[in-house]
Structures are given as C-alpha cells and as structure tokens.
C-alpha cells in the first residue's frame, strides 16, 4: 500500500466517522448517545485534518472537543436532576407538558 493510498483510506474512514457521529447525534434516543455521536463526529473531523495534513486547525479542534465534552457532561447531569432521566423522548414529553400548563402556549 502506497502512502498516498493509505492517507486516502484514512481520510475516507474519518469522513465515515463524521457521518456516523452526525447520524447518531441526530437520531439517538438517549442524550448520552447523542453526545457520544457529537464527539465521534468531532473526532472524525480531527482525524480528517490529520489525514489532509492541515495542522493549524487540528489543535483548535481538539480544544473545542474538550470544551464540548465538559459542557455536555454538565448538561446531562443537570438534565438527569431536572427530568429524572436523560431519554430524549421523555424530556420532550415533560417539556411539552410544561408548556401546556401555560395558558394557550
């Protein structure tokens, strides 16, 4: 396998990881799974940058991923405390009920 082919394969795998992560973030029924999807997509993007040889944005990507992880963890804990669970469906139902309590909302 030539180095050029290996880089192309690595780039393709990274793009696949981004797509898989985005799909999970879009469709998973559990908040933690959605967060994992986001982090997978970000990890894929960082891997793609590495395969492309673009290094200046790579560090920025790593930093942003860490901050996203920290905020997501805090939000998941807050959601667990506020709703008693982190199933997206249950959270949506609870929000809908909250809004229905307001007149004509």
């Amino acid at each position, binding site marked *: 396998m030539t180095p050029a082919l290996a880089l192309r394969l690595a780039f393709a795998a990274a793009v696949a990881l981004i797509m898989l992560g985005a799909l999970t973030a879009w469709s998973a029924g559990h908040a933690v799974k*959605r967060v994992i999807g*986001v982090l997978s*997509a970000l990890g894929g*993007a960082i891997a*793609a940058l590495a395969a492309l040889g673009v290094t*200046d944005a790579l560090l*920025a990507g790593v930093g942003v991923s860490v901050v996203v992880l920290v905020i997501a963890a805090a939000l998941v804990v807050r959601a667990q405390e506020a709703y008693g669970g982190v199933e997206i469906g249950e959270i949506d139902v609870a929000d809908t009920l909250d809004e229905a309590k307001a007149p*004509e909302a």
Partner: protein
Amino acid sequence: MQPWLDSARAHAPLLMIVAPLAAAALALLAPGGRLAWAVACLGGAVAATIALDLALRMFVFGAVQPHAAEGAALEPGGASVACAALLTVAAFVAMLASRAMLRHDVRTRAGPMTMALLSVALAGWIGALFARDLAAIFLAVETAWLAVVALLALAGERARGAVSAALRMLIAGGVAAALMLLGVGLVERGVAGARLEALSSITVATPRLAGVGAGLIIVALALKAGLAPLHGWIGAAYGRASPGVALILGVVGAGGALSVLMRVSAAAIGAPEVGDGVAAALAVLATVTVVIGSIQAVGARNVRRLAAYAGAAQAGCALVGVALGSPAGLAAALVQTLALLAAMLALLGGATAIDGDAPLSALDGLSRRAPIASAAMTFALLSLMGAPLTTGFLARWRLIEAGLGAGWWWSAAVMIGGSLAAVVYGGRMIERLYFRRATHAVEHGDRWRWARAPALLLAVLALAWGVEPSLLLRAADAASQLDLGEGS
C-alpha cells in the same frame, strides 16, 4: 492624547475583541451580579465606541482600514467592520437590558458568570468577523457559540426547559463544528493556504475540494445562524429560554452567526473557481429559509418562537443579497442586517415585559400596560412587513433592486412573499396589542425594567432610519465596495 488615540485606532479590531474579554475576566472576579453587569456593560460600551469610530472613519471619511501587526492575525474588511459596528451596538444595549434578566432569570450566584459568558460571546463573534485565518475563525465561532449555550444552560436553574434547549443547541452546534472543521481542512488543502481571502486571491489548486470545503463551512454557519432547514434548535431555544436569554440569543447569538456567515459567503463567492456554485447553493438556502421561516412564524403561538422564525426568514432575505455576489447585493444585505437586528431588539426586548412563558395571548391589551414595549414591538413588526419609511422597507427595496439588476426576478417574489407573511403574523400581533382585553399580568414595581428602555429606543431609531437613509446607504455602499468592488 493624540498619539494614544492614533495608536488605539490603529489597533481598533484587536481592542474590540480585548475589551469584552477583559470585561469578562473582571466580571468573573466581581463579588455580585450588579458589579459584574456594570463591568460587562462598560466592556460592551468600549467595543461599540471603537467599532462605530472605525466604521465612520472607513465608510464616511474614507480612512484606510487598519493593518497593524497584532501578533494575532486580524484582517478587517468592509462587511466585517460594518457587521461588527451593528453587532457591538446591539449587544451593548442588550447587555444594558440584561440587568432585568439577572434579577429574574438566573440565580444570584450565577450573575457574574452570566455577564462573563455574554461578554465572551460578543468577543467571539467579533473575533470571527476579523480573524484572517480559517482556523482562527473556527475557534472564535465555537467560543461564541459555546458561551451562548452555557448562558442558556445557566437559565436552566430557574426553568428546566432551558436545560433541554441548551442540550439541543450543544448537539446541533457540535455536529456543525465537525462539519466546519472538515470544511476548514478541505479549503486549506484546496487553496494551499490558511487565509479566508486566499479563496479569491490565490489560484485554487483543486477547485472541487475547496468548493466542498466552503460549502461545509457555510452549512455549519447557517445552522448556527438558525437558517432553515437547519434551524431545528431555534424553536426550543427561544421558546424555552427566559425572556432575557432569548433577547441575547436573538441579538448576539443569531446576529453574530449571520454576520460571520455573510463575511465567509462574500469571500467564497468572490472566488473565480468556486463562486458560481457557492452563489447557487446560497440562493437555494436563502429561499428555503424565507419560505419555511415565514410559514412557521405564521403558525407560531408563542411570541419568542414567532420572533425566532421571523428572524430566520429575515436572515434569509439578507442571504439573497449576499448570494448575488455584487456590491449592490452586499450593501442591501448589510441594510437588511441592520433592520433584522433592530427588529429582534424591539421584538424580544419588548417581550421581556411578559413574565414567564409568552403565549400570543400574553400580548392582549399590552399597549395599555406597557406602552413603550408595545410601541417598539409595533415598529419592529411594521419593519418586518416592509412598511414604507421603515428600514425594513428600505432593505427590501434595495434587495429587490439588486436582484432585478442581476436578472434574479424570482428574488423579488421571495421578498414580497416574506413581506406578505409578515403582514399576517405581524397584523395578528398588533391586533392583540391594541384591540384586545388583557388576560395576563405585567411585572410592575421593578425599577430595573427601565434598563431595557435604551434597547427599545435604539431599536425604534434604527427602524426609523429609513426616513432619511442617505448616511446609512452611503456607509453600506462603501463597505460593500471594499469587499466586492473593483480592485478589492
């Protein structure tokens, strides 16, 4: 004194970023919310003053744009300076109005953190407007976005709906960040350079790669600006946020993202190898946004959700101007951005007069209990409709003129369709404000409610600028000529 002033003017873009960042650091150290609010407002006022000074010097007095060596690579262009002036002024008055938010929407101990996050968000968007390199733009955008998400999450301590809205924003924004990062990599590889302007000024080595990269960056920014069909998060974020946080989301969050989107799009359209494809994609995105945003605004039953969807539709109109790729189109888009920010300030600022959730029925008879807020909301709605003598009318007129000049007759239909939809939802709101009996209570006795008066007053003045717009049009034309004119 003059040497200091000259030095400050030479480093104006950097100072616009540093002032709110320093204010954020000091706000965090403040012992209470009131001092943090004062410090953040001071930082916002400094940034707004510098931005207005820079815009006046560049667009009215014809001064050369500053190119001081900063260590950080900043490159102020015409659209970015104009958008920074609009954004900093709007953010400053929104900061003033946020005093009421500190009292009602977040816990007392979270006050300093709230004001610090607001200042960081402002600094982030200004940084993204001026950053020269794509990686720096990415970092600045994400800083601003994550600060707004955290701000929304803080409001979740009082209302749990804000927590789920923040989670939704974080997930949508995280996916957008991944796409933007990939786009940055593809563009840098495609044009063999890290600068945004490299798209148009350097021969593109691999056009397809650069085109896909530019498209991904634009899609990511469109998601953060809440443009349809990528706006799944805005209904929950605006609807479940507290009134004050919704104001910040609409003015600083969506306004900042739209400004950066305009800057990046204008640069990509100027690229000879990929410009046509980017323009076509932007035109489709803008049209879809106007149509879907207008339909959702007509169907909305919550004031803040309605404002969010109406704002998305108006942002779509601005994007049509950018997609034209001409100085006339960009100038019209800048005027439309002013109209949009002023309308958001007035609508969402006026909606802070309503306690708790804001169903449309809360507007019933509001004009008798909150006349200033009602008058500001009415002005905003008339501008959204494109009523003559308002800035909204002026923007719509200039957009149609620029569209017809380029042979885009359909753009006139899009603008008129957006205005007709605004007549439906705006008329419904005005009818409730003035011709119905009140069913909801309005907060009284809180003297800090007057803190939102400057925001409402400034919004009304900006919307009424359409009466005598010669200075506004001159500045918009000068800004667009700098970016897209001959020799730019």
